């Protein structure tokens, strides 16, 4: 156990997926498919050990090659980063197994594996970076990998969605980079910790903060800058949709949280926090209404992502209004929403992928007969829905509880109303799907057999979203360690 605690895991979390990306690219689709489970398992072990280390010994820090900041590159992992890394590894595992089965008889496997490994590497690097410029680089890498993944769906629609996504991703990075340049010009450092010390309140800092925030909310697809998300997430292949909705938008959200807590904490952010909260509330309502009206299953799930992202941004309104020290439950609620949405939404996309593969149709009104033909997929979908609606005992419930508690602690009852209404709207659109699935199958309807893996990996992720509700104390303790 001692040896385990002494292990330097931080570089490995980046090197390992990069190595698998290279190998997958060089060896071809067949070999990539064969080695994927081993790589995913190693990633899971590494992330788990890191979380264990952080829980036991506090934040981990490592300077690459022995060069400390501001000269060298420093990797840093606290409880928040460890949670995000674990989330990535936990979601990637079932999604990877699903993709192995999914791409077996479909084109796209050639590109899927290298790009996915590259995606994981850049996300892990992002969570481990402690330097605003390295963060920019990882953000850019992540965007490119994600755009590439959207394109493997093939067809004109996928290409158009990918181009839109590329446009948004590049624009977002550009805004972020402008902010970084302003900070560097003023304070001559890129290291987060040093910047936090040197940053002084003023129009200069406020402009930098605004630019970086705008860039990141484009990438997180906050209303009204969400235009790129539905075609990209709804149009991609199911394993890609799962990765994008569950993980990729969480990376830019994580960065926002990090910046607002560690860097902009000294600025007066109450009004800006309320604005982000208001946009989040609008996202909850607008995304849910679009989901309610949507006729296609995967697009409905994509709109649901927009709505669920809205909850993440309530965090900013709650944490900035906090002057009495109840920030703990706001942060815990925001992060828990990110974690449980990751599990639930990936489960949903994977389950939907299996249903669509079986029926050959993406239309919600034609889901009849699913409850008898694909009960496991439907159960996974239903379980994930429980978490999205925020019903107990699920991760979504814990998140909602903590956010409600934070709203009460800061005396902001209007967010309570938003969350309650949002939960009911969520219930309305997920039950639209479940209701159709419960109807008896039409005469002569044909179901293609679906590989067992497609159903079981969706179920595994749905169970994770349930488990997050049953074992909330451990992740919350990890998170609380950061602020202690």
């Amino acid at each position, binding site marked *: 156990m001692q040896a385990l605690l002494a292990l330097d895991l931080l570089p490995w979390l980046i090197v390992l997926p990069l190595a698998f990306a290279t190998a997958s690219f060089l060896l071809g689709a067949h070999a990539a498919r064969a080695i994927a489970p081993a790589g995913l398992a190693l990633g899971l072990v590494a992330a788990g050990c890191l979380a264990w280390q952080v829980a036991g010994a506090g934040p981990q820090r490592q300077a690459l090659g022995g060069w400390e900041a501001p000269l060298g590159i420093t990797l840093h992992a606290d409880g928040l980063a460890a949670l995000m890394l674990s989330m990535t590894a936990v979601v990637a595992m079932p999604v990877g197994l699903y993709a192995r089965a999914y791409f077996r008889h479909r084109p796209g496997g050639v590109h899927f594996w290298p790009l996915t490994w590259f995606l994981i590497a850049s996300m892990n690097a992002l969570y481990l970076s402690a330097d605003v410029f390295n963060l920019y680089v990882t953000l850019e890498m992540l965007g490119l990998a994600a755009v590439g993944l959207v394109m493997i769906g093939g067809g004109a629609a996928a290409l158009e969605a990918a181009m839109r996504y590329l446009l948004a991703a590049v624009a977002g990075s550009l805004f972020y980079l402008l902010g970084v340049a302003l900070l560097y010009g003023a304070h001559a450092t890129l290291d987060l910790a040093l910047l936090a010390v040197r940053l002084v309140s003023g129009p200069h800092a406020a402009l930098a903060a605004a630019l970086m925030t705008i860039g990141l909310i484009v990438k997180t697809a906050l209303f009204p800058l969400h235009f790129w998300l539905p075609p990209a997430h709804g149009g991609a292949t199911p394993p890609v949709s799962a990765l994008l909705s569950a993980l990729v938008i969480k990376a830019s959200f994580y960065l926002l949280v990090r910046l607002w807590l560690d860097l902009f904490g000294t600025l007066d952010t109450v009004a800006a926090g309320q604005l982000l909260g208001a946009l989040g509330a609008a996202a909850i309502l607008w995304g849910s209404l679009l989901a309610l009206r949507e006729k296609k299953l995967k697009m409905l799930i994509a709109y649901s992502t927009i709505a669920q992202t809205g909850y993440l941004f309530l965090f900013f309104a709650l944490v900035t209004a906090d002057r009495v020290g109840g920030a703990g439950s706001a942060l815990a609620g925001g992060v828990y929403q990110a974690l449980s949405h990751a599990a639930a939404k990936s489960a949903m996309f994977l389950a939907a992928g299996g249903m669509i593969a079986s029926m050959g149709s993406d239309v919600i009104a034609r889901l009849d007969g699913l*409850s*008898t033909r694909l*009960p496991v997929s439907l159960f996974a979908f239903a379980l994930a829905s*429980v978490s999205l*609606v925020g*019903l*107990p*005992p699920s991760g979504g419930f*814990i998140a*909602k*509880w*903590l956010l*409600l*508690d934070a709203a*009460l*602690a800061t005396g902001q009852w209007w967010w*309570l109303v938003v969350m*309650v209404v949002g*939960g*009911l709207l969520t*219930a309305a659109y997920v*039950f639209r799907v479940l*209701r159709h699935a*419960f*109807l*008896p199958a039409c005469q002569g309807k044909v179901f293609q057999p679906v590989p067992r893996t497609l159903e079981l990996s969706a179920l595994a992720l749905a169970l994770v979203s349930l488990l997050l*509700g*049953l074992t*909330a*104390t451990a992740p*919350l*303790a990890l998170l*609380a360690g950061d602020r202690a």
Partner: protein
Amino acid sequence: MSLNEALPLLVVATSLLTGLAIFFLAEGQQRLRIGLNLGGALAKLALVAFMLRGVWQGQHYEIRYPVLPGIDFVLRADALSMAFVTLSAVLWLFTTIYAIGYLEGSPHRSRFFGFFSLCVTATVGIALAGNLLSFFLFYEFLTLATYPLVVHRGTDKAMHAGNIYLAYTLAGGAILLVGVVWLYHLLGNVEFTQGGVLARLPADHHDQLIVIFALLVAGLGVKAALFPLHGWLPAAMVAPAPVSALLHAVAVVKAGAFGIVRVIYDVYGIEFAADLGLLLPLAVVASITILYGSLRALTQDGLKRRLAFSTVSQVSYIVLGASMFGPIGTIGGLVHLVHQGIMKVTLFFCAGNLAETLGIHRVSEMAGVGRRMPWTMGAFTVAAFGMIGVPPMAGFISKWYLGLGALDAAMPWALAVLVISSLLNAAYFLPVVYTVWFRQQDKPWPSEARTGRLETDWTLLLPPVLTALLTLGLGLFAVAAFSPLEWAKLVTVREYQR
């Protein structure tokens, strides 16, 4: 884990695991399914009987598990829980036997019995929940577990009813959640404690506590079908008869009523609730519901709809009893929680028998059916008399204590409500009884199923006859040890002794 920790968990697990196992059975594995169903129900009953004795002797059954920092998931068996747990366990057994016969040969039986068991799991969890968070958890679980039962038939009408059911119950759940989180925010932790926990909060919180009470009661009132939140209940009548029986007798409406009892006695404390002036408005709402439900029942020709409005009315007797300040009213409310369940389940069994055997769904089709199905209609008559409050049925005991409680709590108008309601009960039940026994059959039965020597299948006949006997027995032997009345007195003594 000691035995006293394991028991509450086992009582929940007996139906949870049964339910989960049944989902995996193929439609054809009927024997195994019946075995699991009955095995689970009997095991639960045995455990409950053991715990009932233990709680009476002062044993402490509790298990906890941390869910959030400082907040535990708690299952605990106190006297009040056991009243509801016992009712659930007994009626689950009867309803399972009935459902096995009722669903003979229909599709999706594994799905049905799976959710049926989950529904009972949720009910038992609600009963055993040791704090407000755990209660909420099972309360929402109940919503989800009953939805597939309501829409089981998959017809347009059933789907529509399901939508209404969800809209009401999920909205109620959301309102309840706000109240629950608010209380936790004020208190840190809200364990159910005999005599209440809120009286110690400083006086400047009292305004908030009144708002929270309104939120909690509104959230719970949806399931308890308090006027004007009762709209889902008559709509949900499209569900198969065993589901209606369970919904009306133990599961959904009782969960709401039980929750209100919990909130008044074990969260606010009856004295503190009275000090805050919360009881009178609640009693008024309950009274309005009692009269409204009875009035609506009068004009319903559909038998199940008539029974549904009767439930709206009868469940509010429990709320009325709980909102009377004084031990006698409390006893009346609590004992009605049990008695109403047994009587109502009988009535729904009988309605199901009529529909299943003769295709009768309306009161106007029931002329002379007493000759064709004497046992069923005998049971129906006993239960209907019980509902009216005719001695020596169980319903008489409830109404007697409720009436005395009204006078004791200086609420003579509530006595008037009870009297008027009883007259109305008689007005909508007696014509049915008259039609059944004293009128001649004037047209052929809508669709008669072939039956053997008995008037209908024995699995359909046995449960209502037994529950009718219970209705009679609980009235005749109301002062026997472990009778609902004696148990209600035990609960009341423990609630008021502080």
